[in-house]
């Protein structure tokens, strides 16, 4: 909130066009991959909502707020997916949603940004840095973001599964968004 006066100042001086974005769900994906016993394990969350306010010319007024229905996770194997809601993994009975929220974004290169956000997953909130590229043209934009999360930081895969023997510790999160500017 310490940025509030700056935000007001900047917004007041910019052209008054909106920078709120609508996610094209069919063309967007919140995926991840890791390893299972040296092989590749790939999955995604099917249900999630994102509020995105972003303007490359006005980073001060950024809001990335994503709410994920954790139970919508799928890894392409029902045999495996049956166990993911369990307490050892995502414990969806107690923690049905995960959130990622960032208001602090810095530009790190041409079209490349770094969001300093907070991820709440399985009851644990931790800072997460999410690098992303923004490829905007007029009223549409493509976003690609990738970061690596250590699953045990959030207690995902607890107990006997808390080492990398069966499922890799590092999970690569891959986000692809297709956005259109809200009127």
């Amino acid at each position, binding site marked *: 909130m310490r940025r509030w006066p700056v935000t007001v100042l900047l917004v007041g001086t910019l052209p008054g066009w909106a920078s709120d974005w609508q996610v094209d769900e069919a063309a967007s994906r919140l995926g991840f991959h890791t*390893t299972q*016993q040296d*092989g590749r394990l790939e999955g995604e969350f099917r249900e999630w909502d994102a509020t995105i306010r972003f303007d490359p010319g006005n980073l001060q007024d950024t809001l990335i707020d994503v709410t994920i229905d954790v139970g919508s996770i799928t890894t*392409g*194997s029902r*045999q*495996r997916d049956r166990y993911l809601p369990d307490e050892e993994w995502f414990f969806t009975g107690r923690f049905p949603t995960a959130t990622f929220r960032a208001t602090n974004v810095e530009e790190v290169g041409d079209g490349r940004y770094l969001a300093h956000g907070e991820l709440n997953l399985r009851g644990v909130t931790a800072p997460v840095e999410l690098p992303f590229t923004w490829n905007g043209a007029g009223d549409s934009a493509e976003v690609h973001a990738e970061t690596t999360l250590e699953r045990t930081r959030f207690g995902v895969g607890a107990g006997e*599964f808390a080492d990398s*023997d*069966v499922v890799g510790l590092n999970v690569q999160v891959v986000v692809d968004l297709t956005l259109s500017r809200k009127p």
Partner: protein
Amino acid sequence: MQWRNSAARWGAIAQLLHWLIALAVIGQMALGWVMVSWRLSPTKFELYALHKSIGITVLLLVLIRLGWRLFNVTPAPPAASPRWEVRAARATHALLYLLLLALPVTGYLINSASNFPLVVWGVLPVPNVTDENESLQTVAEYAHLALFCVLAVLVLVHVAAALRHHWVLNDTALRRMLPGFKPVEER
């Protein structure tokens, strides 16, 4: 050391393949039972991975063995055997080969249809042959179990027949599959 087969005995390569596969098959049967009844834990996953790695290895060994058999003479059946016994032995051996191929193949199908990654011995990635398919998985599981039962019976028949040749008929059918055996005509 005689590597190739002769009319009177199996060579070292054929013997090695026979006993390696025999050992692996007995191990697979035990491992298969243990792993399905193991509680869900990392150990269970490791037992499955081991079973899959051994299974694919057996598949390759059986293919090598069949290839080797093509380029070698097959020792003749004991001269005193009645024709029905020779025929029964041939049928059993053919069926054994078939099962040794069909079991790994159905196992591979189970793995593919359940969309689990397969990395043989942790180093050789094998792509899945189908997308996830639960009904195919169920069919392949029943087939794998049924083939296992047939194989278990045939292995018993095979072992019993070998022991009968050795102790009752006193011929060389078993000894010629053992290292160090010298047939009379080669001494």
